[in-house]
């Protein structure tokens, strides 16, 4: 009796192991958290210096169109108007997501509804390969194929938002597709069976039942795709033209936050205004990435409520 009591109330090898395991696992997670916090701190401390140390007004930064941080503009403040980059980044991001969505939806439907076995076998590697192709190679192909084609069709130099969009389209496609496939798979099978049993055609069951049930999943997938597009640097930089001009059409050179950041960072000196201004761009990138993720969470929780 007492032996059992002792056995049941004292810790054993298993509990000790569990405690250590939990601690180690927690430390790993904590490390990742710490990493994010320190990246945030570094980017924010430098990015905010533009406003607090160099006294650039936030509004000017977001709304002015002249980007030339090493020079002082007519009004006596440094020319750090990030509007062209912000517009450029948003344009390529939104356009590539819009372009990619029908393709991604088709791919996902093909893999889950139309030809689950064959589609899965063929398209899964397709998606993974598209993810696996390095962005340097995308940029290289963009420069040698996409830009000349755009130039031939649309005129201009071929560099610009359209080229950027086309390259990003291929890059975000796998992200959107694979995430949407996951959410289609989570639509319970009886939805389909119920619709088909009522005499609906496959398309009717897809359109009226499955697509509707998976709208939150699709939105989430698109936003993750946009997050990827927003942060992409090398490939876009090679095809967008890097002109800090407010884009007025799709085929004239424009720039994105990442492209200005990557090209400029090596030419500036730490702690100076031109360098801080670039970090401010990085801060925008970081905040946008945060915003995208929070948006996904909001959609996710809304989606659960309506289910």
């Amino acid at each position: 009796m007492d032996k059992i009591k002792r056995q049941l109330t004292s810790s054993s090898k298993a509990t000790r192991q569990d405690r250590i395991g939990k601690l180690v696992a927690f430390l790993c997670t904590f490390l990742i958290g710490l990493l994010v916090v320190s990246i945030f701190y570094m980017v924010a401390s430098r990015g905010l210096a533009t406003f607090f140390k160099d006294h650039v007004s936030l509004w000017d930064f977001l709304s002015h169109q002249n980007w030339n941080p090493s020079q002082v503009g007519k009004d006596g403040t440094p020319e750090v108007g990030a509007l062209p980059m912000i517009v450029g980044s948003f344009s390529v991001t939104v356009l590539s997501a819009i372009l990619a969505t029908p393709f991604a939806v088709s791919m996902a439907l093909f893999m889950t509804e139309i030809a689950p076995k064959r589609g899965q076998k063929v398209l899964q590697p397709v998606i993974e390969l598209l993810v696996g192709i390095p962005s340097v190679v995308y940029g290289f192909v963009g420069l040698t194929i996409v830009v000349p084609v755009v130039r031939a069709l649309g005129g201009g130099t071929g560099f610009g938002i359209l080229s950027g969009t086309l390259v990003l389209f291929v890059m975000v496609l796998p992200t959107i597709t694979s995430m949407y496939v996951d959410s289609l798979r989570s639509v319970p099978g009886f939805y389909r069976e119920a619709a088909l049993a009522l005499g609906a055609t496959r398309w009717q069951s897809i359109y009226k039942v499955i697509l509707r049930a998976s709208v939150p999943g699709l939105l989430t997938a698109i936003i993750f795709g946009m997050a990827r597009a927003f942060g992409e640097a090398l490939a876009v930089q090679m095809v967008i033209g890097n002109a800090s001009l407010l884009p007025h059409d799709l085929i004239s050179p424009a720039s994105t936050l990442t492209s200005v950041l990557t090209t400029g960072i090596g030419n500036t000196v730490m702690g100076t205004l031109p360098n801080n201004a670039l970090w401010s761009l990085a801060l925008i990138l970081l905040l946008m990435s945060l915003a995208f993720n929070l948006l996904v969470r909001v959609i996710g929780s809304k989606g659960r409520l309506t289910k």
Partner: protein
Amino acid sequence: MNAKRIDKLATAVISLLVGVVVLILLSLIGYILVTGLPHISWHFLTSPSQAFLKGGGIGDQLFNSFYLLVLTLVISFPIALGAGIYLFEYAPKNWVTNTIRVAIEVLSSLPSVVVGLFGFLLFVVEFKLGFSILSGAIALTFFNLPLLTRSIENSLTAVPKLQREAGLALGFSRWQTVLGVIFPEALPGILTAVILSAGRIFGEAAALIYTAGQSAPILNFANWNPFSPTSPLNPMRPAETLAVHIWKINSEGIMPDASAVSAGASAVLIVVVLLFNFSARWLGNRIYRKITASK
């Protein structure tokens, strides 16, 4: 139009769009291979690169890429596994856990150039690791951790809950259950995730430019003492990887055959990524079959 015809039409449209995507991929890969494969030879794969002469190879860069990959996985896999297990098994459902999840997602969508600069400031400059494979591996770890953690957690979650209960009901601790019961069953998924992430690491350039550096000092492949500066194994030496090399010759290359080297190197990169993908699939299936013993 009746429902049946709409159904046919919709199927046709979907198939068409799918066909377009497959075509894009095939022509992408085809283009890269067709322009690149003719330049690939044994000499190209094994000899060091040339800065301004014809006939340079990519031997050192190829080795660097693999070495960096191995180091990165050695550092990032245990951490990602730990974090994945924590999030799967131990994390309480509260705002702290939610914040950590958001943080991981944010880290995964961070532009790699920002990660690279962070690695540069912290490890290259602050911790005085210099431009080195180790700095590069740490930077790539940052870049790799969120994705790997998420896929490990997903693979663990994909194992039926019943298995977890089976373990617990037999008096296993949670740790034993995760490691002894769930992890082996999630292994195919985890392996696939690791290999796919390996493909991404292999192709990453932006995060490495400021950490592992963009020069490849001449290596002496007869010297395997990891402390010697010319040894391939020395983790403290700077190392230009294949992807960085492609980026560099496209931007500043002055060798007369720069475009050929670039095309050849791109083709090699793609072939390696292809190999990773197929081996991931093959290995995953094999292990799955082995543990389920299905034919």
